[in-house]
């Protein structure tokens, strides 16, 4: 029993950190971004350590449980959030802006997302997921420029709420409970009727929307373009892992029959995402929107690799997602270093010739983009290899052809960015880059190199944790 309560420690630490941050904002007269960063960092480290120590303890059986698989995803989220927070500190210090709201939102977001992952009750899971998604509205309210994006996000969040309520109500009316065991039993034992199917499909659609798969991807563009850089960096990278984990949970056990019936539609979403991501990336001149396109593309490939769901498929798609997000975080880190006269650069043309004056930043960007392209010997190759290998083993040759063609179209977009950075002349004078940015880039690149030289950490050890 003692252990069971202790298993709530990660969430407790996060909650405590939220309260501490609020108290600091209220009562500390000189609370700077460093103050909030230190508080948030401490809470995040404590939560991470606690979740590792109690990785397989279940605090509330029937509602909330942990296992190695869940802890892996939580660990990744803590680490990624920590790096996002560190980078954002540089941004807030540089612009001398208040940071309390941002750190509070990050902490709450991480709390909700990790809680959703541990939930074994559909209502609890979707309540937390929806709450975390709704926080995006507040992320958009951090800046006056992004108010319009916030208003539009309200509509998306309302759509999510309606779908969630509809799905949960329908399932509850048929099973009398929203516990995973009972819901799974209902879907497996009884033939799939129209109401059960539409309820399951509604919940899956919610996850696709949160993941940003086409055609539910539009909300991301304005968020990325108008939001402040720290918010964009966080929203674009960290929650994706949790949404993916939730999708795996739903597709693999809870809503497996619905997912299997929906498979042609899922494949359609996947290929549409690949096509939309790749084609729109080629026509995009705004860097942040461009990287939303990349995210849509990545999600498309992940869904295509997930296929009809098998453990191999999950593993292949997870590896691809992980290496892609590492590269995306690297690219966002580079964005923190691209500044001219105090303004962070957003347009592709504004970074022309960056290789001349910022060779290390340009080299890092090149490194991550080539990795995203799946070009060997960089880490992205392992991602594309995992995906292609699972697709070949399932005989999905047409899907491979479509995905590889998507990669080729995407390559055109990456080459365009490389061309602007390296081949074109310099158009602006870049500001001095903070050493912390270089430090984060070095850490990211070293991590990637370690995984590259010894991919067993990524492939074998994680496979053991997953299965």
């Amino acid at each position: 029993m003692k252990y069971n309560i202790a298993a709530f420690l990660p969430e407790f630490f996060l909650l405590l950190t939220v309260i501490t941050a609020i108290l600091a904002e209220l009562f500390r007269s000189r609370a700077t971004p460093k103050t909030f960063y230190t508080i948030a960092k401490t809470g995040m480290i404590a939560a991470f350590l606690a979740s590792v120590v109690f990785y397989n303890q279940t605090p509330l059986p029937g509602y909330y449980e942990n296992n190695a698989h869940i802890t892996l995803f939580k660990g990744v989220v803590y680490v990624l959030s920590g790096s996002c927070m560190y980078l954002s500190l540089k941004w807030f210090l540089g612009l001398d802006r208040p940071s309390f709201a941002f750190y509070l939102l990050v902490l709450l977001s991480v709390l909700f997302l990790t809680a959703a992952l541990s939930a074994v009750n559909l209502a609890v899971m979707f309540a937390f997921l929806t709450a975390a998604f709704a926080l995006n509205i507040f992320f958009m309210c951090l800046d006056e420029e992004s108010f319009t994006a916030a208003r539009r996000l309200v509509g998306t969040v309302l759509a999510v709420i309606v779908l969630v309520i509809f799905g949960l109500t329908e399932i509850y009316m048929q099973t009398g409970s929203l516990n995973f065991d009972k819901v799974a039993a209902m879907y497996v034992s009884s033939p799939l009727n129209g109401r059960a199917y539409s309820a399951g499909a509604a919940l899956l659609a919610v996850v696709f929307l949160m993941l940003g798969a086409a055609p539910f991807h539009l909300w991301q563009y304005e968020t990325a373009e108008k939001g402040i850089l720290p918010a964009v960096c966080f929203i674009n990278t960290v929650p994706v892992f949790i949404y993916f984990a939730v999708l795996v949970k739903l597709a693999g056990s809870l809503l497996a029959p619905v997912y299997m019936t929906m498979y042609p539609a899922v494949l359609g979403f996947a290929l549409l995402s690949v096509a939309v991501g790749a084609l729109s990336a080629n026509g995009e001149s705004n860097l942040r929107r461009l990287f939303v396109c990349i995210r849509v593309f990545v999600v498309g490939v992940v869904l295509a690799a997930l296929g009809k769901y098998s453990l191999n498929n999950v593993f292949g798609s997870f590896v691809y997602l992980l290496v892609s997000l590492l590269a995306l975080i690297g690219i966002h880190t580079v964005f923190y270093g691209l500044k001219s006269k105090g303004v962070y650069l957003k347009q592709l043309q504004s970074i022309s010739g960056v290789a001349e004056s910022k060779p290390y930043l340009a080299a890092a960007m090149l490194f991550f983009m080539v990795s995203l392209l799946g070009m060997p010997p960089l880490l992205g190759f392992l991602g594309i290899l995992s995906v292609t290998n699972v697709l070949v083993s399932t005989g999905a040759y047409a899907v491979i052809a479509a995905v590889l063609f998507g990669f080729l179209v995407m390559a055109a977009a990456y080459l365009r960015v490389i061309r602007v950075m390296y081949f074109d002349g310099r158009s602006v004078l870049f500001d001095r880059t903070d050493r912390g940015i270089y430090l984060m880039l070095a850490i990211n690149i070293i991590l990637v190199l370690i995984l590259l030289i010894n991919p067993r950490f990524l492939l074998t050890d994680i496979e053991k944790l997953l299965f």
Partner: protein
Amino acid sequence: MVPYLLLITIMPLVGMIFVFTAKDNEKTKGRNVLNVAILTVGMNLFLIVRALNLIKPGYGNLQLSESYNWINTPQINLSFGADSFAMLLIFGVHLAVLIGMWGVRNAARGQKPRMVFVLLFLSMINGFFMAADIFSFFIFFEALLLPLYMMVGMFGEARRRNNLFRFMLYNLCGAFLLFAAIVVLYNHGEKNLLLGGIKNLHLGSAGETAVWTAIFIAFMSRIPIWPFHSWIASVNSGIKDPLVFISANIMPLTGIYGFMRFWPKTVPDTIVLQVAVLEVISVITMLFIALIAWVNRDIRYKIFSFASIYYIFFLLGVFLPTDQILLNVGYSLFACLLIFASMEVLVSYQLSEQSSKNLSAGGILSSMPKMSKAFSFMMLAGAGFPLSAMFINNFVIMAGLMNYSLVSALAAAAALLLISVTLLQELYRRKDEINPVSALSLKDKAKDISGGDLFFMTAVGVILLLSLFNPVWFMKG
């Protein structure tokens, strides 16, 4: 045992890191990075010669095998192995790059990125030539593209960047096709399939056609053959930097080498058509390029044509159903690489003199006696005179071709003859004294190359001459 092959692959990467972090400013003017790069290539040459002396001469029997487990799921090893053919190519490529480095030693800007990417290119091409299994082969095959794209993009002609972009996409398309074919082969055969084992796989008629067609297109994408030759020509002949020009023109070698390692000697029925089509297209392309080179005034285009025509000629040799001729192809390729690299460096110098002093090409060599000697040697060797290994070995390859298909051989011979005439014509134009040199003031005359340059070119000439008498003079026995 010393892992020579791994060291030969890694050494340029290590050098690249040193170059990347080396100080390069107004004061050093790129000297630091150039010295580090030359030192790296020199050290690697030492390792290559050592490895060459450890292997038995011959083609096909991969020796000094090394295998490193990289991934367990799916199981992928990085396997290396080399025969004297592969090592000969690596040796030739290193010498060509060294000649290129000599050519850019006084470059005013961009020495650091140039050396970083050329060393990366060198590392990848070494891995490519020594890859012993399908995945290692693919990894290096695709990885070569990035340094090349970066070098040509940064130091090539700005007006031709759209062509470079298309060329790169076309090559990536080929690489993705090869990737798909390799993953299919991997899933159908034993894991870590060695290159020699591909021909023994049976995938069924449809599978075989699909896989071999993908492989065919992948390797074709690297060779300046119709219908995509104009992109390669436009990109490569527009490069004004000798080192980048040499690197870019080494690229087609990867396509030929790919065919050499993958293509089965006994061609399956499913791909007989592709081989026939390739043969016809190759011969037509050779003639076509030779004709354009003949009428084109741009000397860089002529050098590009020289290299391309010989590459296609060697490709025809590769398709002959005997392994014996492949060693002759290797010997000839070695000499060809050195000749076109030297030609490019010398031409680059002449063009810079022409442009800075507003001189015409006609008779420019008459005021440059040292340059004239070096350039004449290289042009004559390129034209097929008995000055290098190309002389005898080209005859052997041609004899093999004639034995196989007389029409193709005659057409190929016509193309070779035409490009030789083109080179001699250009040499004559540059040596012919239209305006007496004595009539020009000293500042208007083209400045000759230094004694050091002549010494360097003499050393290259000696290597070429040695290759005429014994193509593997640097090997024991």
